């Protein structure tokens, strides 16, 4: 088996904390492939896929198709076009890099709540040139409104269940749900991971007002 750097797993977790599982997985698969070829990507799945199901899923698609899974923000942007504001729960750098510029008239906030560990929020937000406002958890409801939207990222569905980051479960209380017009899920990994989605939580797909 291809020998990979022993710290790769810990490094991936650090990157996923600040970039999101999906965005970090795309980088790690791309760079591992560039450095070690497809055998390196297979070795990464073997060694770290069980721990990091989104990394495993991205690697599997890369090995199947020869390409990284893409990110298309147009459907999410269309779903949010009429919103007065959107509060993002969870974080995916690749997705938000595309989405935020498509919504120049819609104020966007990022809920400062991550279950993966400490995050340098200043560094995360610096990439968006003030287009993404940091929102402490206590201010969650101040983003509510009859035309406001909540957005989170989905990592595939299995039947009636969607794989989401656990932050979404913190937010989806019965008090908050009727305070936002739209509860949007953006599925970045349709079909989901092949292995048990450790580190992710499940939510009923019916908890979204729309899933794109």
């Amino acid at each position, binding site marked *: 088996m291809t020998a990979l750097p022993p710290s790769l797993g810990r490094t991936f977790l650090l990157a996923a904390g600040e970039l999101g599982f999906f965005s970090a997985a795309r980088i790690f698969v791309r760079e591992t492939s560039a450095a070690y070829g497809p055998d390196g990507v297979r070795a990464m799945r073997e060694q770290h896929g069980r721990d990091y199901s989104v990394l495993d899923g991205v690697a599997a698609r890369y090995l199947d198709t020869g390409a990284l899974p893409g990110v298309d923000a147009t459907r999410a942007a269309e779903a949010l076009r009429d919103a007065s504001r959107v509060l993002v729960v969870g974080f995916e750098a690749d997705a938000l890099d595309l989405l935020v510029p498509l919504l120049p008239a819609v104020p966007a906030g990022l809920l400062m709540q991550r279950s993966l560990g400490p995050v340098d929020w200043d560094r995360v937000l610096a990439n968006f040139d003030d287009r993404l406002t940091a929102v402490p958890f206590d201010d969650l409801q101040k983003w509510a409104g009859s035309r406001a939207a909540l957005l989170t990222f989905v990592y595939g569905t299995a039947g009636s269940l969607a794989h989401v980051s656990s932050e979404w479960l913190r937010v989806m209380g019965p008090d908050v749900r009727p*305070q936002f017009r739209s509860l949007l899920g953006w599925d970045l990994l349709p079909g989901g991971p092949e292995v048990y989605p450790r580190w992710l939580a499940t939510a009923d797909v019916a908890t979204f007002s729309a899933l794109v």
Partner: protein
Amino acid sequence: MLAPWIPDPHDRSFVARCLGDEGPPHHRTSTFALLSLLQRAMDLAPQAGAPSPSGPTIPVPLRVPPHVREALDPGEREYPIGMPVGALSRRFPDPVARAAAVESLVDGPPHHALANVLMVAMLDELLRRLGDGP
């Protein structure tokens, strides 16, 4: 069913979700049953056709804490449907009794309050068709 009172499709989906997906299952089912019966009554009433609500309404506030409410955009502090007060005003001419009825109808969990509001809206329309009011 909601379109005459909530023309915007996004707004309509929001209220429909609050009515049909939120709150306890027995309440959702009750709401659907009662609204269906009211719709049937409206269909059978004289002057059948799509309602064209135009009378005075009162806003239905989003259920958020007071300090949060102050932080919200003034245009987004209410649900996108108002409660007609024409029939209520005729039935409760005393302002104190009317205020108590109105407050009770729009209070409570959103799924409950919105169901009340829609039922009042349909009753307001139904009574108008039966000759009660303008």
